[in-house]
């Protein structure tokens, strides 16, 4: 076997270890449906919608003699079972239904997912192939279990008639003696009670949702509660929006607080621009961690919860200068400084009111300054001069200011250097000794946030800005090291929470990174995201705490890049050191 043959054989062998999941075709169809829905929404209530509605009504009157206000759906051939979809993709496209719903666009249907409003119902009726699983009750419940509950297992048993009062009960076959996972109420939204078949409620005998009630209009923070019968429960309560994506969007998630007499409660602060969503409560099996029970109700969101748009611009270091960059194109909008001597990291941080940037600037051997420059352009101002030694990592918020200071003599005494963080709050100055090197200082409302590293071990610190409370640093999760942290969205008690990135290398991915949310005292660590093959170095929320900006360098290539965290992420630009907005 020559080299070419060997390489080809190895690649084929490696490739054939990969077996795609069974849900590929459904995912593609869901993506196409999403795309169609987006296009439909873009057209809004404009010409296309008007044309389709007008056409449909005319046909309805001619063929049925009914009232044009009804929802109708011609009988559709059953869609293939979801579990069959990988090996035999369903044949495409039946004839679209002739009659389109006239329910107002924004009116909620009282359904959980994926069709929840009059506009979405109309879009589906215009082209059922965008989501063929809704053509019959059976495939609709299966699609719901997979797409909404996230249970993608072949051994589920579906008992009951989707069109019947009892609903469809979903149980795992291998645990026949256990309680069902959930019972789904399914309703046909066609005029004849037929397709589209949509899930209106998911109930469980082990956990109930008392509030919010099905179909309630809610605003932030949402307080949910209910009852349970499970022994030693760990309920996860999720608030979800029915966005334009193929999957529901997680707005907030928390562990429920439980107490006698078998009541659970959870508070979920959120922001969203979606009109409809749902609350989902799940508990997992102690045996294997799989979802053992689930209950969900549909919701509508009040008008007072719009999602703030991400900033149009951000600040970062590029080519040894600080620049204001476009968050859309990554292009430089304005250079804020000249070339900074030494070309080192100037640690820029944009103020919350987005008017000034503080940054550090080298001023010769073993000395540096902290400066401020207006975002609108203008001359820098020195905030901390060279007589203070090596100063860096400035952070300012309101009347609180902090920076990092280390001693240095002739540039060669780093092993013996002392490191400290200086805080200044309303002219009251204090110092916090730092054991090791610090990075990522961020001033919060009452606490300071930074990461230290010593002998390869990292700690997350949240000391009191006023020096009144002892610092109790938080160690990273096992197998991980803290990479960066910032102050994030507020909790139910209106306290800022910490969002931190931890690098958790795996055998295959040294850049495996997990995002966590923690209370301001470092407790209640919750995983909120996971990224592959990255090296997150900076995190920064915008002032509204809705858009998280990641400064990162890929371990392949090594470029510093700015990326907006989301699903999917949106890369802004590379060659952006220490982005902040």
């Amino acid at each position, binding site marked *: 076997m020559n*080299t*070419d043959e060997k*390489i*080809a*054989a*190895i*690649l*084929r*062998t*490696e*490739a*054939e*270890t*990969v*077996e*795609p*999941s069974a849900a*590929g*075709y459904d*995912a*593609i169809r869901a*993506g*196409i449906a999403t*795309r169609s829905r987006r296009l439909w929404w873009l057209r809004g209530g404009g010409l296309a919608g008007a*044309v*389709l509605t*007008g*056409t449909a009504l*005319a046909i309805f009157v001619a063929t049925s003699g009914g009232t044009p206000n009804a929802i109708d759906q011609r009988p559709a051939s059953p869609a293939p079972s979801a579990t069959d979809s990988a090996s035999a*993709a*369903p*044949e*495409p*496209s039946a004839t*679209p239904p002739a009659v389109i719903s006239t329910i107002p666009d924004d009116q909620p249907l009282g359904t959980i997912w994926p069709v929840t409003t009059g506009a979405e119902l109309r879009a589906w009726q215009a*082209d059922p*192939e965008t989501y063929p699983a809704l053509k019959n009750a059976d495939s609709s419940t299966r699609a719901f279990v997979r797409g909404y509950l*996230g249970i993608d297992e072949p051994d589920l048993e579906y008992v009951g008639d989707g069109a019947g009062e009892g609903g469809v009960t979903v149980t795992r076959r291998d645990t026949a003696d256990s309680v069902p996972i959930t019972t789904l109420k399914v309703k046909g939204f066609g005029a004849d009670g037929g397709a589209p078949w949509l899930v209106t409620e998911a109930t469980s005998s082990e956990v109930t949702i008392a509030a919010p009630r099905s179909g309630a209009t809610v605003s932030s923070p949402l307080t949910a509660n209910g009852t349970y019968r499970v022994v030693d429960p760990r309920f996860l309560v999720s608030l979800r929006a029915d966005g334009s994506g193929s*999957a529901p969007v997680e707005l907030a998630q928390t562990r429920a607080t439980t107490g006698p007499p078998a009541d659970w409660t959870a508070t979920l602060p959120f922001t969203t621009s979606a009109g409809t969503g749902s609350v989902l409560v799940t508990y997992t099996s102690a045996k294997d961690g799989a979802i053992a029970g689930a209950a969900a109700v549909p919701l509508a969101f009040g008008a007072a919860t719009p999602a703030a748009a991400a900033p149009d611009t951000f600040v970062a270091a590029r080519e040894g200068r600080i620049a204001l960059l476009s968050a859309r194109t990554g292009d430089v909008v304005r250079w804020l400084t000249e070339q900074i001597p030494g070309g080192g990291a100037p640690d820029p941080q944009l103020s919350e009111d987005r008017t000034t940037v503080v940054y550090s600037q080298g001023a010769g051997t073993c000395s540096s300054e902290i400066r401020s420059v207006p975002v609108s352009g203008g001359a820098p101002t020195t905030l901390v001069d060279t007589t203070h030694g090596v100063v860096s990592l400035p952070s300012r918020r309101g009347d609180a200011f902090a920076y990092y200071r280390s001693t240095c003599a002739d540039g060669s005494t780093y092993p013996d250097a002392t490191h400290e963080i200086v805080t200044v709050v309303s002219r009251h100055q204090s110092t916090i000794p730092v054991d090791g090197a610090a990075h990522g200082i961020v001033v919060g409302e009452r606490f300071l946030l930074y990461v230290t590293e010593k002998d390869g071990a990292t700690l997350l610190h949240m000391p009191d800005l006023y020096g009144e409370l002892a610092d109790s640093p938080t160690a990273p999760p096992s197998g991980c090291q803290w990479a960066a942290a910032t102050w994030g969205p507020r909790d139910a008690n209106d306290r800022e929470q910490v969002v931190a990135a931890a690098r958790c290398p*795996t055998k*295959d*991915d040294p850049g*495996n990174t997990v995002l966590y949310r923690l209370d301001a005292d470092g407790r209640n660590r919750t995983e*909120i*995201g*996971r*990224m*592959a*093959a*990255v090296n997150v170095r900076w995190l920064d929320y915008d002032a509204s705490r809705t858009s998280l900006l990641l400064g*990162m360098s*890929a371990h*392949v*290539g090594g470029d510093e890049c700015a*990326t907006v965290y*989301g*699903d*999917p*992420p949106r*890369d802004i630009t590379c060659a952006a050191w220490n982005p902040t907005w």
Partner: protein
Amino acid sequence: MIDAMATRGAATERTATADEVLVDLYRAHYRSLVRLAALLLDDVGTSEEVVQDAYIRMHGAWNRIKDPDKALPYLRTTVVNLSRSRMRRRQVAQKHAPKPMPDAPSAEYGAIALAERDAVIGALRTLPDKQREALVLRYYGDLSEADIAAAMGVSQGAVKSHLHRGKAALARHLETES
């Protein structure tokens, strides 16, 4: 009203054609494209997402592609571009932890030493993107240099160069393991 119905009928016809092509291409090529993406990327979940995204884009672009013969090259190019983008962007997998590649070799190719395969695959993953793409398209995709150039959006000369360098790098690992 008649115009509106005619317009809608035409749109439905185009969609049906796109659906037919989608189903055919899914049946014939989905698995191999996921495998190709898995060689370019580093986890199966991301590879599936990339390939699904490529199918969705192909479906959406059908009015521009029109020719079924061009659909597979379009898909392949999209998979390569999206994979490259994912590598560069470090795809966020918020809701699903990456699924690791299985370690065990298939019985069919049991003759190939696992250590050698690991070394070569490990080396493949450290290669620059374009060398890796060229090698995967050549040795797994079995494409000609012209087709590789089209899929990668580079010249045939560049493909030759990427293949030469990439192959030399992998050959060193083969020699080491031998």
